[in-house]
């Protein structure tokens, strides 16, 4: 065809062979990224633009953040995000502290019955949330905890434990036992061994597990929907679910802005820590 084909037939053929692959990747990127881009541009459009311009049109004013202001104030997103923070971080902290200690006791310490207890924790990974929902509702109702964020904190802590205990036990298993044995021979107490040797050794793993649990809890809808009985207790996911209802099907801008706030937040954390998130989520890929 051209002289270059004559000179380098192999190279051109190899380059051409890659064309279908680049097309596939191009399609992939458009499918993954474009909806998010469309959402972001939508959040900057005015109601007038939604009604009169085609959906793929870009916003006329790229600095129009009034939708965000409206979603934040009128849409109560500030309250929802605060509730999420109040519910998520204490339970995250509890899950990690209790889970790491339990993982240590189950893997490093020597006693009969470790196997069955670890197995009992494993059962929790398979059980659907629906199975424990109604008894918990009854419990919280009878103890008068309904109407607070405590049901969320308690339930998230318990639901996060199986996976945390299981993963921490696995991490402790990869630490050579001699390290702990040497520490005890040197006269360190078990608590000292746990805090000065065990914990620092699995510090990175703790961080990864915490990250995975954070995404599970922050994005949860089932538990939050069941135990948030009033509007001022709603978490961000429950608030968002009711968002379109609040604004009717008419106010597009604030809806897009509310979705964007939610998406940008999680995306920022992910981009900042993406290798860890990927590794952690795939390693902990047990919860549906």
């Amino acid at each position: 065809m051209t002289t270059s084909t004559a000179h380098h037939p192999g190279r051109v053929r190899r380059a051409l062979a890659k064309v279908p692959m680049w097309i596939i990747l191009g399609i992939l990127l458009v499918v993954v990224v474009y909806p998010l881009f469309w959402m972001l541009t939508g959040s900057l459009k005015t109601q007038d633009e939604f009604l009169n311009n085609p959906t793929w049109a870009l916003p006329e004013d790229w600095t129009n953040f009034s939708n965000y202001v409206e979603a934040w104030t009128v849409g109560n997103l500030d309250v929802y995000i605060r509730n999420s923070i109040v519910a998520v971080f204490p339970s995250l902290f509890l899950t990690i502290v209790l889970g790491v200690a339990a993982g240590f006791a189950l893997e490093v310490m020597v006693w009969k019955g470790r196997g069955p207890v670890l197995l009992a924790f494993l059962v929790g990974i398979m059980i659907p949330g629906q199975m424990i929902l109604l008894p918990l509702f009854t419990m919280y109702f009878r103890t008068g905890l309904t109407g607070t964020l405590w049901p969320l904190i308690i339930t998230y802590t318990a639901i996060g434990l199986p996976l945390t205990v299981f993963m921490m036990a696995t991490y402790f298993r990869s630490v050579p036992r001699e390290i702990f044995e040497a520490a005890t021979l040197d006269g360190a107490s078990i608590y000292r061994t746990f805090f000065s040797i065990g914990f620092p050794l699995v510090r990175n793993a703790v961080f990864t597990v915490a990250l995975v649990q954070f995404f599970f809890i922050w994005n949860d809808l089932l538990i939050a929907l069941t135990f948030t009985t009033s509007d001022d207790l709603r978490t961000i996911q429950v608030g968002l679910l009711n968002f379109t209802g609040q604004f009717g099907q008419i106010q597009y801008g604030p809806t897009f802005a509310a979705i964007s706030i939610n998406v940008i937040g999680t995306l920022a954390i992910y981009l900042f820590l993406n290798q860890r998130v990927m590794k952690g989520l795939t390693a902990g890929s047990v919860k549906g």
Partner: protein
Amino acid sequence: MNRVLGDWRAITILLGPALLVYTLVMLVPIFWSLGYTVFEGNPILGFTFVGFDNFAQLFTDPKVGDALWFTIRYAVVLTLLQVLFGYGLALIYVFWLRKASGVIRTLAFFPVVLPTVAVALLFQELFKIAPVQGLVNDILNVFGIASVDWFASSATAFWVMIFMDLWRSMGFYAVLLYAGLVDIPDDIFESARLDGASGFRLVWHIVIPLSLPVLLSSIIFSINGTLKVFDSILALTGGGPGNTTTPLTLYMFQTSFTYGEYGFGSTIALLLTVLCLVVTIFIFQSNRRDLTKD
């Protein structure tokens, strides 16, 4: 030494709190929930003993049948597509992009971490027909195809749902399977190539058999997740139109909290739990049999 590592007081202090919380908030409720299956009512109005009525209702209520059928259809279709697309992507990462796949992996993983409710609302807007048409129908119009009211029929709503969940999860399965493929030693591929295997033959005869364990765990994980699907369906269609996209999880939720039938709700939850266990054990067993045959 064993006196220290086997100190009962230390074991109690370290394990006790976790075991207590786990027992009270997960194990006890599992058995409590089993107890509910022979009762009718809810904590506000009180309970009455009904024996096995709830189980009888489980077999006669047509909505349970519909929900079960939907759950299975959804789980099978989505599991197949998730693992298929994830595997395809993983192969692309390993064999074509190789070391340069980092950026693509990061981008394709994006949707995995996004909140399901936000994604579902986004897809509602994308597939909307009225009052303002969404992007998907606009694109159809460009190709001269009439707009579709995606959420008006159960068939189209089902496929929008599958598409959305595939969009959300594809990158996850790609990374999971990629991790399995990277573990295969390079010299196996080298010797296969020297023997003249390439392209599809290489994938079919070498890559797939060697990545069978990770494929299997992907399938188990996917089935378990899809049988429990709740967030994405509730936020995307709310189970509609009618109750044609209502899975067992959502039907259980509606029965319990909309109609206040805790007994029947628990019975549906039990059905779901048994379904998850049976499917997982079945896949495990069938795989073990295959391995012993080889």
